[in-house]
């Protein structure tokens, strides 16, 4: 007798249908995580990411290709730097972890670097969990997990995550390591990039905490996941690694809250018409209709975080939404949501004059006209 179809498998099946036949699921990468943080209320992004749709291909198929891409120079340099940091069984990396995070422990020597290869993301996740359990059985030793795979429940569907490295300390606690190729110049790095790295690491920490809870049993408590991660960057203008401990408690709390607040993907999936599919193979009109069937909340911040941003921006502009000029603009204008509404209110053709937003707009329009007239004279 086949096992009864659980809610989980039903959802997985539904998401695979949305993705299209024979389209492999895309893991939740750093950009998707950033988009999650930038715009948690967007149902379109949520369902597409949840279903593992390749949004880059989708955007191209829709006729508004995304402008993201990575230069091979950056890629080569990033990979070369990561390889250099992890060379020699991670000796340098472990030295940095010891120096920056755990000076009271034994200096790392003969660290265990287990092999994590397995087939498929599920296989690799299981393998990672196994090795973490194994590491717990070796107290007093350092263990380096190179590119482990973690699973995190995002809005009811598992997302697979791949941190650069996870280190198990001799006391059994775990540290997430992020290796980035932007420089640490005179001890400080670009705050925007550090922030992005911290948000990314926070997601890894959340995923690790879930693994840790599962490892707990009667005799041993769950291993501690450290809330200070190690950020490794090139030092100044060289290719030597420099590291800094980054406290990610705030990012972890924010991400955990957002994950909890996410509309459950099944609920979004249930609102879609039967037969909706986001496969990039489909003709553009069909695809546009499919994408339009999920509401989006576009804001200019999406441009730096979501592959579909140009498509959503074009839609947002077509409808004259003021949010396409930025969220603060929207906030300033009270109940007026479209460009024409605002301008009509400012001209005195529409709107309630007792509404403070309308009154302020009219006053602004008068003052602006007066100033421009004065300048022309």
């Amino acid at each position, binding site marked *: 007798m086949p096992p009864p179809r659980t809610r989980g498998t039903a959802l997985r099946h539904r998401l695979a249908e949305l993705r299209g036949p024979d389209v492999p699921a895309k893991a939740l990468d750093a950009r998707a995580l950033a988009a999650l943080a930038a715009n948690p209320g967007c149902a379109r992004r949520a369902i597409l990411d949840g279903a593992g749709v390749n949004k880059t291909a989708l955007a191209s198929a829709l006729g508004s290709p995304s402008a993201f891409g990575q230069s091979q120079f950056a890629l080569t340099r*990033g990979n070369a730097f990561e390889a250099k940091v992890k060379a020699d069984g991670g000796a340098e990396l472990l030295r940095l972890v010891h120096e920056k995070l755990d000076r009271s422990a034994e200096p790392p020597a003969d660290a265990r670097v287990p092999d994590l290869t397995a087939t498929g993301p599920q296989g690799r996740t299981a393998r990672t969990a196994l090795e973490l359990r194994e590491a717990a059985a070796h107290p007093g030793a350092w263990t380096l997990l190179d590119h482990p795979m973690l699973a995190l429940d995002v809005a009811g569907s598992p997302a697979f995550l791949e941190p650069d490295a996870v280190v198990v300390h001799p006391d059994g606690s775990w540290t997430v390591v992020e290796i980035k190729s932007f420089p640490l*110049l005179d001890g400080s790095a670009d705050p925007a990039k550090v922030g992005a790295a911290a948000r990314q690491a926070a997601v890894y920490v959340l995923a690790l905490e879930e693994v840790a809870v599962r490892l707990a049993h009667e005799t041993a408590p769950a291993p501690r996941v450290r809330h200070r991660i190690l950020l490794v960057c090139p030092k100044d*203008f060289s290719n030597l690694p420099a590291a800094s401990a980054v406290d990610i408690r705030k990012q972890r709390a924010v991400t955990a809250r957002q994950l909890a607040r996410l509309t459950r993907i099944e609920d979004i999936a249930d609102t879609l018409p039967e037969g909706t599919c986001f496969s990039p193979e489909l003709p553009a009109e069909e695809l546009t209709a499919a994408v339009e069937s999920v509401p989006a909340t576009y804001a200019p911040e999406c441009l730096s975080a979501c592959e579909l941003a140009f498509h959503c921006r074009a839609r947002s502009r077509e409808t004259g939404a003021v949010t396409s000029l930025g969220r603060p603009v929207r906030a300033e204008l009270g109940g007026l949501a479209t460009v024409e509404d605002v301008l009509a209110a400012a001209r005195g053709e529409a709107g309630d004059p007792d509404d403070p937003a309308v009154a302020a707009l009219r006053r602004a329009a008068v003052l602006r006209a007066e100033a421009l007239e004065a300048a022309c004279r």
Partner: protein
Amino acid sequence: MSLISTLARLEAVSTGRAQPAATVRHRHLGDHPLVFVPLTTAGEAGAPLGALVGTDRDAPRLLVVPQPRDRDLRFAFLAELADVVLPYIDGYAEAVEAAERTETDPETGKRVKVEVELCADAPQLIVPSRAGIDLVRLLGRSMRFRRTAEQDPEAPYPAPPRVPLLGRWLTHFGERARVPGSSLLLAMTDVLGRHWAIGQSTLEDQHLGALLAWIDPPEGVTGAEAALRAELERDERGQLTCPPAGPATDPAFDNKLLAPAIERYDRARTALAAAEDGLEADDRLGALTAAEREIRDLLLSRTRPTWDAVWRGLDLLRELPEGAHVEERWTRDRWSFTGHRDRVLAGEPPQPRRDDAVTAANKLATREREQARLEAQEALDDPLVMAGRRLAGEAFAGEVTDVVMAYSDGKRPSPRPLVTVRTDDRPQLGERTKVYRSLGGKPQSAEFVAAEEDGACVVLRILDKMGRGKEPEPGSVPEKGDRVCFTLFEHEQRGGAKLPDPEETPWTHGGPPGEALPEAADPVTEEDVL
């Protein structure tokens, strides 16, 4: 963003053209700015790829690093850049005028006036975007601690002469750019965005091509369409027709065109090195030159559109009349330039990696003061900016409806006339709030006495600038029927509290920095290619 500028953006959306956000030009533009359009290699810190640089819009100089990971080629680029930038800077260092500055006399401790030199004009650097300013700062940092063979014969990989000096100058330009209202180093996108409101979000203001498209669209298309095209249009090779203003290049350009060209260059170089006889070497040298030529052409095709765009932006900005206080702020830039020139001439060491506590506090205080100054001056120079302040309740304008003469109590009564102003504005006035108006370029202060007719009339008492006599000097008191504009903010900024000398730094701030040690050069690593 004030409601007035939001409104301007919305009007831009609705009309399809940029709308004025200023009625005068708030930044100084020199007669001969040096335009610098740099490109960098993705993923590397401070590895330039090439640049267009020069003061003549028709004859830019193209500098190229055919293999950005090669230290020698990078140094050659920086040396060439120094050959262009340093003579340009030196051209402003010679012509000086006499000026006075108050200094504290070290012996008596009194403030005395001293005769000093002030450069008659200063160089001005224009880069396309804000990221360009960051790159100028980064290049400055990467060069100023380098050692030349002359300074340190033992140093491995010595830098060409004058490169450290260029680093110090670029650092100075980069630091100065952080001071609000300064014009030594300007980003074109910032300056255009200050003067025009476009129908896009502020996040999208950093695209130079899109900005220009909104401000001055080509015949027959709206600014919105032209901007969209500038942002996204790609040619048949998948390249953006309006390349990004840099310094970062488009990944599609890197992957499809540049990387293969650099690979060909590398191969030609290896082949040349392996040549066995003169004849073969000649041929291979030809191949190498051709490969380098190809990279030069590629980089020119990416930088030239930006170069032209920067100059077009300059044309548009020059059409605006200069604001009245711009000259005064430029004089501060000239002081800053003269100061750094003197520090270089005096043989002082390069700017340190980290400022000591007193210097850092001074820098922050300067930026705060200049920000306040800039806001006040822009409002006084530009009715559109003042309109924003009026809307915010920080200023009010109106007609004088009544003037009543009154006098102060005391032995020698001085005039303290009461002026009633009818205004539509709603200033945030409290009891005896001080307000200011500009009288012949000087601020005249008054205080708030009472509001009448439900706030439509404001009664003020004029406090100063009326002369010493019993009767106010003619023209110093507004008359009935005059249009006046008072601000709640001060027009001139007072200097903050004086900070101690660095040697006197209190222990709370790390104590005295001690003897300044010469900063060590950045260690160089053996291998240069990652």
